[in-house]
């Protein structure tokens, strides 16, 4: 294995670990609410045994709460399952906008923890590339992380897409007044390995604090 192969593998394992940890935290939170709801039902039944009136509305409310949390857990598991299948194929035809939207959904908790707001401007037309889906997702997450990390205070990122289907690109516009943030972007060896593997180049626009991931067409 070359040094770049090792770096790429390290980046991939780190990414998979981060996503799994985040999803399992979300599940722990929903389980916790289900657990407390079940405990509350137990408390109410114990009180009813002692002669306190039992409100059917209250029971209905707790049951609905539990159903809501089960659905929430199911959504987390669905996205974790979809993400796990990203490694199935070495190369596949990928819709860039759909991939960005999925990654954003996957990392929503991590973004929220950073106190950041990330929005996506819909693409004018579908843009397809032939690439490794898992590493593309990794690259998009690194771009979001980079865009949030260089900002201070309220972190805002707007993601948009290039308009030329022959030259697909994803753009990250940062809402910041901080100077020289571009130098800090994608500085790690792992990022370089990811960019090289996906054949992606970065274009930095210092004038408006944005950067773009320029993807190869290759379909």
């Amino acid at each position: 294995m070359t040094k770049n192969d090792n770096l790429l593998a390290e980046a991939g394992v780190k990414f998979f670990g981060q996503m799994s940890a985040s999803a399992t935290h979300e599940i722990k939170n929903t389980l916790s609410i289900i657990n407390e709801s079940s405990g509350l039902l137990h408390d109410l039944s114990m009180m009813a045994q002692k002669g306190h009136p039992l409100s059917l509305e209250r029971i209905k409310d707790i049951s609905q709460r539990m159903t809501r949390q089960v659905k929430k857990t199911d959504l987390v598991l669905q996205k974790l399952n979809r993400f796990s299948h990203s490694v199935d194929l070495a190369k596949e035809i990928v819709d860039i906008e759909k991939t960005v939207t999925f990654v954003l959904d996957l990392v929503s908790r991590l973004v929220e923890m950073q106190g950041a707001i990330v929005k996506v401007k819909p693409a004018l037309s579908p843009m397809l590339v032939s690439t490794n889906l898992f590493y593309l997702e990794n690259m998009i997450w690194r771009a979001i992380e980079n865009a949030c990390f260089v900002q201070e205070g309220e972190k805002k990122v707007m993601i948009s897409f290039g308009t030329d289907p022959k030259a697909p690109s994803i753009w990250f516009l940062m809402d910041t007044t901080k100077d020289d943030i571009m130098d800090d972007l994608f500085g790690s060896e792992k990022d370089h390995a990811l960019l090289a593997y996906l054949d992606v180049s970065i274009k930095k626009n210092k004038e408006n604090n944005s950067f773009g991931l320029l993807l190869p067409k290759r379909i």
Partner: protein
Amino acid sequence: MSEKVLLVDDEIEFLEIMSERMTARGMEVTTAQSADQALAIIAKKSFDAIVMDFQMPGMDGMEALKTIKNKRPELQIILLTGYATVEKTVEAMKVGATDFLEKPADIEALSNKIKNAKTEKMLIVEKQTEEKIKDILQRYGG
């Protein structure tokens, strides 16, 4: 006397159910949805224990723990967490967390920890008062 507890978690549904269950066990519960909100409440009100989620958007549990302990060292903080790593647990205990509990938490275990925290807080306050009295007596030649 009932234990005065501040419950801090960004999940509103968790706050609602937990506070109902804790209130049923005789505790006086105040809730906050963020560390910033908790800090504002602590500035105005006194508590026997603070039960706080470790991972919250904005200021996280560790940062909040440091800030609270810095301002009010007598306050007892029990951290709730989805997954506690050994490193984080050790760091939190070093900073001054009273205890750790993993989610989903057992309400009886939490209640016991809150009772212990109240006793611990009373001992600290007693000690602080004794020291203040000693200091006054020394200053005024008592």
